[in-house]
């Protein structure tokens, strides 16, 4: 679908769900807006949450998730239906979120984000604690944690998604989890 879809990452979906998603991708490639909307609706929550947990900014998370879906639209004709849609999308989301986090020192369009922040829904206390603890980690560690525990990829799949050695993924996971435990138990 794009250069970022180079690695063939498998997600262990139930056979029926896998087949259904392939059918949706096929119909979307043939122009069915309904099929693409089903793909969007089923993948949006996890894409948005993943971006939000990595960047910690609702407006940026919306932007990142939306841009990832726009990338999917642009590359839809080239998408290999034998591969699952989710991992490809999550790879883009997480990489963009890491890039955004690295560049967050840049100046903000402050009145826009302030207004959007006022509209944000209030997360639960636990979720707030977790988000705050995640915010203490490096973006690369956050991404690995989110891929493992929100999107439920195996360390091997994460290594493929992020083009990292498996040992690096394991060490980032271990260190990230240790720091999260400390923060959550404080």
């Amino acid at each position: 679908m794009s250069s970022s879809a180079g690695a063939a990452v498998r997600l262990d979906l139930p056979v029926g769900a896998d087949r259904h998603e392939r059918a949706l991708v096929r119909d979307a490639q043939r122009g069915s807006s309904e099929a693409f909307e089903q793909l969007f609706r089923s993948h949006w929550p996890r894409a948005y949450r993943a971006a939000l947990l990595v960047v910690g900014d609702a407006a940026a998370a919306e932007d990142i998730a939306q841009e990832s879906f726009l990338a999917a639209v642009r590359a839809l004709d080239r998408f290999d239906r034998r591969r699952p849609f989710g991992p490809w999308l999550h790879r883009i989301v997480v990489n963009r979120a890491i890039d955004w986090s690295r560049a967050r020192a840049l100046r903000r369009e402050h009145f826009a984000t302030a207004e959007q922040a006022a509209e944000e829904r209030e997360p639960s206390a636990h979720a707030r604690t977790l988000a705050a603890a995640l915010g203490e980690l490096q973006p690369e560690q956050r991404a690995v944690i989110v891929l493992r525990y929100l999107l439920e990829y195996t360390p091997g799949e994460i290594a493929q998604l992020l083009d990292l050695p498996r040992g690096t993924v394991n060490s980032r996971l271990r260190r990230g989890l240790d720091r999260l435990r400390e923060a959550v138990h404080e």
Partner: protein
Amino acid sequence: MKRLFDAVPVDSEAEERAWGVVREAFAAREPEARRRNWAGPATVLVAAALLAAALSPPGRAVVNAVRRSIGIEGAQPALFRLPAAGRLLVSGGGGTWVVSADGSTRRLGDYVQASWSPHALFVVAATRNELAAVEPATGRVHWQLARPLVRFPRWGGTRTDTRVAYLTDGRLHVVAGDGTGDRAVSSSRIPPVWQPGTSRHVLAYVDGRGRVRLAGGRFASRAYEGARALAWSPDGKTLALAARGEVVLFAIATGRAHVLHVPGVRSLAFAADGRLAMVRGRSVIVDGRTLFVAPSRLAGIAWSPSGRWLLASLPLADQWVFVQTRGVRRVLAVSHIRRQFGGEPSLDGWAPGQ
């Protein structure tokens, strides 16, 4: 931990906003199979119909009559609605207006030029001696900057980091999206354009010697006579320049210039899918082919967000003309534009959204 992650709320309004944008993008693409199946026969049928109409005596009479007039016959007496989704921004002697898809209009103020912010959340507008950031829904001014002879305000960047470029007294200036940090860049005379798809704030402009340059990048071209307009392709890889004798497409990564020998182009714009539209005299040219010939001179051009429609202005006829660029060729003309907007408006951009 999985339960905690899943407890992070998902903003349903964000989902709907995103779906609106993604749906527009999806609608704008054409599936390969559909293009293969229909493009050929449809083109042949349209060409045959046009040829038959032009060759028959009544058809020729109609064509000649239209050519003699300066406007398009059968135009609607007013702009009742836009033919596609989105919000149109126009400015002129009657101020700056936002036109919604349902035809409702909102006047933002006594501005004479304007453009959308990158995500169409705001408008940057200019009076003769002032630059202002304005909310399109209310006209509320967020910041303003007093400068002499302000022209061509252009807002670029990402949702979280933006810059505004503008000309003041013949000098190109850049100010941050919150109105701070104003600085001069160069001398210039034509509207600058921000490169899309990057957070590096790359601004293309034509300097006082007629050379195309990038502020924030290393590119610089040779000098071109009569440079009139610049436009970026949506992927930010190609920069188009309309000069007096030609249109030049610069591949920014390599610096190579591809010259199109189309003299006299006054306006040009890329659609979201990368098609390049140019206005030359009475003609609208899309990807090298004449899409539409008007009875009188055309001015300005704007793509609908979906890329399905092109809007151009016929100042002599006091009309706007909407031309459908995909599927069946449809031409919708609207009259009495000056009366509706209090003066002859320029087309400042057609953005997504309600």
